[in-house]
């Protein structure tokens, strides 16, 4: 039926125009604002229209630069001079007043400190490696022991042998290591006579220190500190001076002086191993960084949630008995809010899994955490994709499948030549949804690890943007990152749509 022209114009005005207006208001305008902010060094707090300004600055930088009298009088109707501190001030400006003020500031060429246009500086910074190292994939050195601390009482066998012993180049060093540590019950234990606390106690518990208090604790502190420093520097002379000074200036019996010398001698000896352990027990490790983790998460989430969603749909499409119940069961995780999901799984990882498996660390282990997060996301999302695949499967005409089956084709052949080609539209939408969701995921990581994700290496792109904008006060840089993310999502999903659309079969 051909509609009269006035009718289609009316429908356009009634339904499409308001939609377009809302689209412009709620998408195009904020998006444009975002692009504008990404070209500034805004700190997220500086008002674009100053709230208060010293009189002289206000007059020279804004007021006197406005060419027209009506503009100046408008400005002065908003700002009032507070004689108490000689500043121009304004109250909240809303609506059109705000826009007129912004326009006037542009006319005057005024840009507040903390909200200046910086051109492509933010983008350049991102592309030239100028933001935090943790943003990019990188290699870092894991130092397992700090020479200023006590020697670890135990070191796991694997760590000790692989990351320490194997790297010692001289027999003397190996001898030194075995002088202090011995293998017991599959861990390397510091021998009891080198227990630093006990060694130090031989001085702390001297009656002159602990009971009579004729030797001050500061003095003992200073002695131990000098002995430890000398030990790390292997400076025998400094050690001798420190100990003999202490003994000479303290009211100690000859036996006690001997005890001090013996104990400090042992503490001094620890220094050699401490230095060796601190410099040798290090590992080069790879860290995905924000970009790497986002890509990792996207790849595995898209892969697994689609695979599992598809397999579940296939299984349920076979007409098994409890199909309806199972469909609801698998879909149920999707009804839960991500925050609830995160809480539930945090409980599982903290309480349940350690009790069941005896393994202590789950989310706190940087090697496991990224995989666990992918797992939870897949758990939550697969049911949703399953429903889309089920709808796709139910659209495949049964007569085609039956005809193929009568012709003697097996399940695999039917799946490959009939089901999969006809299911491409479902793949198109499922891939699109899972891709874009993964790239902009935020809530799950926010609730499960929060900003601690920087230590675990589980910060997705959007959370990094959030942290930059609000904790680091780099709103301009954060917005530039957001614009880049938008472009990346548009490109990736665009390519995916064009590829899968081409493969769709028309019945």
């Amino acid at each position, binding site marked *: 039926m051909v509609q009269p022209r006035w009718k289609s114009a009316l429908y356009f005005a009634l339904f499409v125009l308001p939609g377009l207006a809302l689209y412009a208001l709620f998408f195009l305008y904020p998006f444009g604002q975002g692009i504008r902010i990404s070209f500034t060094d805004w700190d*997220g*707090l*500086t*008002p674009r229209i*100053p*709230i*208060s*300004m010293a009189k002289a600055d206000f007059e020279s930088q804004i007021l006197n630069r406005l060419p027209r009298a009506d503009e100046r009088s408008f400005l002065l109707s908003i700002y009032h001079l507070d004689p*108490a*501190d000689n500043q121009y*001030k304004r*109250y*909240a*400006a*809303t609506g059109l007043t*705000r826009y007129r003020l912004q326009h006037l500031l542009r006319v005057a060429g005024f840009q507040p400190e*903390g909200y200046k246009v910086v051109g492509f500086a933010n983008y350049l910074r991102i592309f030239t490696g100028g933001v*935090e190292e943790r943003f990019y994939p990188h290699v*870092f*050195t*894991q*130092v*397992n022991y*700090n020479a*200023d*601390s*006590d020697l*670890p009482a135990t070191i796991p066998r694997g760590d000790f042998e692989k990351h320490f012993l194997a790297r010692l180049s001289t027999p003397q060093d190996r001898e030194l290591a075995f002088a202090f540590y011995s293998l017991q019950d599959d861990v390397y234990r510091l021998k009891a006579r080198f227990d630093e*606390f006990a060694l130090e106690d031989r001085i*702390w518990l001297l009656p002159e220190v602990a009971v009579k208090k004729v030797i001050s*604790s*500061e003095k*003992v*502190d200073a002695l131990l500190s000098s002995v430890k420093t000398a030990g790390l520097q292997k400076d025998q002379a400094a050690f001798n001076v420190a100990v003999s000074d202490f003994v000479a200036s303290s009211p100690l019996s000859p036996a006690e002086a001997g005890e001090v010398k013996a104990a400090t001698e042992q503490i001094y000896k620890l220094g050699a191993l401490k230095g060796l352990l601190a410099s040798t027990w290090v590992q080069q490790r790879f*860290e995905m960084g924000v970009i790497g983790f986002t890509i990792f998460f996207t790849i595995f989430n898209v892969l697994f949630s689609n695979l599992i969603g598809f397999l579940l749909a296939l299984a349920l499409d076979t007409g098994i008995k409890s199909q309806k119940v199972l469909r609801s069961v698998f879909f149920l995780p999707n009804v839960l809010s991500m925050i609830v999901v995160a809480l539930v799984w945090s409980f599982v*990882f*903290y309480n349940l899994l350690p009790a069941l498996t005896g393994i*202590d*660390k*789950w*989310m*706190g*282990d*940087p090697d496991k955490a990224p995989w666990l997060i992918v797992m939870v996301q897949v758990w939550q999302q697969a049911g949703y994709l399953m429903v889309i695949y089920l709808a796709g499967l139910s659209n495949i005409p049964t007569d085609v499948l039956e005809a193929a089956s009568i012709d003697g084709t097996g399940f695999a052949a039917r799946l490959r030549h009939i089901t999969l080609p006809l299911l491409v539209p479902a793949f198109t939408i499922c891939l699109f949804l899972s891709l874009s969701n993964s790239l902009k995921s935020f809530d799950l990581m926010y609730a499960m*690890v*929060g*900003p*601690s994700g*920087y*230590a*675990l*290496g589980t910060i997705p792109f959007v959370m990094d943007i*959030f*942290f930059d*904008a*609000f*904790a*680091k*006060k*780099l709103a301009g840089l954060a917005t530039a990152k957001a614009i880049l993310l938008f472009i990346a999502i548009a490109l990736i999903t665009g390519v995916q749509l064009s590829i899968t659309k081409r493969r769709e079969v028309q019945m």
Partner: protein
Amino acid sequence: MKKLIVLVILALAIVGSLSAQKLEMYYYKQEIQAGLKTLTDAFTADNPGITISLLIIPNDADATMAARAASGSLSEILQMQSYSRVFEYAQKGYLVDLTKEPVLSRVIPSATAAVTWNGKKWALPMDFAGIGIIYNKDIFAKYNLKPPTTYRELERVVKTLKDNGVTPFAGLLKENWSIGHFITLVHTSLLAEKKIPVTKFIADMDAGKTSYGVVDTGKLFSIIDFYRANMDDNAEEMSWNEQQAAFSGGKSAMMVQGLWSYGAAIGTNPSLNCGFVPFPVFNDAKMNKFYADVDSTFGLSSQASAEKQAAGKKFLAWLSTPKAIKIWTTDCKLTSDFKGADLSALQAPFQQLMSTVAKNGAYPWAFSMYPTAAFEDGAKNGAQGYVFKKKTADDVIADIDRIWREARKQ
């Protein structure tokens, strides 16, 4: 006649409601939700023309407040953390200058530094909070332990606890704020060892004249290592809730926390018997002080109309009345920054904090004076990265220096 009376009453009611000032208070301390309601209701009872509605933003309070500031929709009354938070908003012009308000003269003089920027006072200091060791008195008594006053005593306490199978410190490494507090606590104490006043250190950092590593960093990181080594093995899995559960359940004997955690622990286990002592960084007991300072403050938005600002000032003035202080200390269970405030209603650990600080002084909350990014990223992520072995001690110091420089645009 009846109609006329009704009309007059209606007219009066309308005029009344028009002249009434409705203020909104923005606050982040979720633990005082009920107490604040009591407080604002009592204020309205005394000042019938002014009502105050409450807006709570417990998590990421600053993110929300910054967004509201930028969009010109700040609440009239703003609860802010002391120092940096106040200074940043004051600098951008969002706060009303309260220097000449009489209520500020009723505040303990030492508390006003936390709200003074550029020679003017921008908020009203409200409570004093301290971070230290909250310990379980019953466990200590069981093993015949005394609360440690020196680092060596702490080491000894830890040794005894470990020998008896008790975890010394309840772990909290899944979130980074607590270990962030800890590194700054130790760092601030170590500044005293070098005889560097905190304000001078902050000013020098702001000017790029010093480094975070100006203190004995060997000691700084060895104390962090000691702290980590004596937490639960799976402390990386433990957030604040798990820490509270471990401490209040008696699994661990101590936690390094602010007294806000005491409320939570006692809430889970009312029979818990707690003491509160400074974390001893030194072997010289005199040098060990609480890490304590003004915590929350109230400021007024300069974006509010002149009438609302006047109403807000009335509220701030009213807060110093004995009635308001009583509600603040009994219902909100917080300490007070007003001179001569009656603190008898406070629970024992709070009393312990106040009396110890009165006697020995305290180390100020330097982290509140750091630029926001230097604390949020440099200190919190830095310390957590260190215990997760993602960063070395040198990395942490270098990162804090760099982030600080960037924040101050040097």
